[in-house]
């Protein structure tokens, strides 16, 4: 009886909250790491607004969602850094007021003016970054064995899993083949596909974030291709053997950028949200989100993060890592379609 009462109270409470939400609302299209209360609540309380979040994975999904929406539906967009020009040319993003954003404490590599500044206007700012490289279980595999990425082509069957997102993994494989991610062209695809197929023959699964995390955390596989700190950092407190490495050939760097929709009905509030996410506190919460951990773009976040958190993210090694990493490939429409075709064949194999 008591539990029934408390359940009813919960039900009544949530219904009330749902109907009582007449306050101003901010609608954001984000990756799953933006949904923690630690990040959102302080903003909602400060401005007395409700933040509605829709999660997506991959720029294609975001564009799909935007196409299916009415103008004015969205206020804030989080998007892969390399896809900002694409979003700008589609007229999705509005210029940002740069003077109120923390450019002076941003990691210099994350300013990425070539992606964010178009015709003298800044359309987005980096908020988080990390690497798509190789995660492994150090109790089963020695780091030295993975220093040369091409060793993966001949890994033990069933010992590895692959992260299911074509851009970073194909970029990583391209680097393993000695190619630069920025210069990828149609001619490079056959070699990349051949290497991918060798990977697939040894892979036990190709999965999204959770499937990948589960596979390596439960010892189902020893190596995760496409993984990195975003897979392991949140888990090391429980499984210290989980580790990641940037091989000699380098790795792919991913970065997320945040911007404001051109047709937002409340651009000022949206800019405030961007400023909140870029603030040291917002950055610390974002870096250690429950969905995945990764480096904050604003180095000032280091002041509010614990030493343990920074160690898990390898804060002090970032200079060396950044030097070794290249950005995600940023294919044009034709190359993108061809790459997705390769990836579909990879999945179907």
């Amino acid at each position, binding site marked *: 009886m008591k539990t029934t009462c408390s359940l009813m109270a919960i039900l009544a409470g949530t219904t009330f909250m749902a109907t009582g939400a007449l306050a101003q609302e901010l609608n954001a299209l984000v990756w799953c790491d933006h949904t923690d209360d630690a990040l959102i609540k302080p903003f909602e309380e400060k401005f007395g607004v409700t933040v509605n979040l829709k999660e*997506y*994975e*991959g720029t*294609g*999904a975001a*564009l*799909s969602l935007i*196409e299916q929406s009415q103008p004015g539906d969205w206020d804030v967009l989080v998007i892969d850094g390399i896809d900002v020009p694409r979003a700008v040319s*589609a007229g999705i993003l509005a210029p940002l007021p740069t003077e109120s954003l923390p450019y002076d404490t941003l990691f210099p590599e994350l300013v990425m003016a070539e992606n964010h500044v178009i015709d003298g206007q800044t359309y987005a700012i980096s908020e988080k970054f990390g690497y798509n490289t190789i995660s492994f279980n150090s109790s089963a595999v020695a780091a030295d064995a993975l220093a040369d990425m091409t060793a993966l082509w001949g890994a033990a069957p*069933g010992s590895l899993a*692959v992260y*299911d997102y*074509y851009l970073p993994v194909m970029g990583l494989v391209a680097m393993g083949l000695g190619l630069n991610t920025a210069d990828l062209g149609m001619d490079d695809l056959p070699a990349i596909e051949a290497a991918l197929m060798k990977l697939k023959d040894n*892979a*036990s*699964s*190709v*999965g999204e974030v959770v*499937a990948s995390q589960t596979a390596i955390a*439960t*010892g*189902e596989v020893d190596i995760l291709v496409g993984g990195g700190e975003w897979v392991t950092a949140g888990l090391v407190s429980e499984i210290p053997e989980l580790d990641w490495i940037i091989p000699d050939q380098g790795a792919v760097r991913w970065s997320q950028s945040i911007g404001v929709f051109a047709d937002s009905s409340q651009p000022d509030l949206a800019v405030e949200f961007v400023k909140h996410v870029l603030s040291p506190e917002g950055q610390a919460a974002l870096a250690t989100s429950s969905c995945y951990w990764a480096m904050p773009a604003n180095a000032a976040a280091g002041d509010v993060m614990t030493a343990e958190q920074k160690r898990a993210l390898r804060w002090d090694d970032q200079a060396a890592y950044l030097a070794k990493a290249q950005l995600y490939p940023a294919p044009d*429409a034709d190359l993108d*379609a061809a790459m*997705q*075709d390769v990836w*579909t*064949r990879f*999945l*179907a*194999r």
Partner: protein
Amino acid sequence: MIRAASIETRDRRRALALAAPALAWTAAFFALPFAVMATASLWRRTDTGFDRRPSLENYADFWSQSAYVEAAVNSVEITLAVTCLSVLLAYPLAWIIAVELPERYRRIALALAVIPFWTSYVVRSYAWSLVLAKKGVLNGWLAAWGLGALDLANSRAATVIGFTHFFTMLLVLTIYASLVQLPRNLRLAAADLGASRFQTFRFVVLPLTLPGVAVGAFLTFALCIGDYVTPQILGGGNDLALPQLVMLQISRRADLPMAAALSVILMVLVTLAYLAMARWMRPR
């Protein structure tokens, strides 16, 4: 005479008024969307939007990409395997519940057989991934009994097991329904006429329950071939099915026209299955 005719007209109007809401709803939210899909399947995705001049290019693309055709073949193979397995597993259970079990236990036995229905569909698939994982429960037991490990996770076998689990529950219900409708006297009469138990089953019970089985099997086929969740969670990215391909178009390429074309192909496969069932069911 005139009055009779007007009553008939009135009844007809009244009946039409009763059916109108359901018909209107089906037209607006089922037939129209279907037409939109069929039309969209003739468009093309471009850099900035859709090219709305009708063409069959999406279908040609489908046909020319071996991975796409393979996904359709995978889907059909998985679905046929699941349909056959589920019928074979469900029929005996439905038979035991409907015929062998004392009447007072029937309801509870039936309820037990379908309770896992209410676990939530997404979670059920995920639960199977826990059972079948390389270091999962099943292999834990096998090891405890000194047996070798099974490598079922992330494969077609896992997808088929997950599906079979769901559809066995569904088919137990439908087959049970057609078994209890059989008058008990029919079986007694067959026995009186000297038929063995097997003969009674083969020549009396089975033919009479076949329509129910066929409808259940068709429903299984239609639901199974269109499902995205189970192959996505259990297939481990090793065995692409048609619905996964559809969702790849939506979530990675923002390519609604290609997704629509693949959906049309999916519907063609379901229609073929329906025709096959109808043909098989036709009295010969």
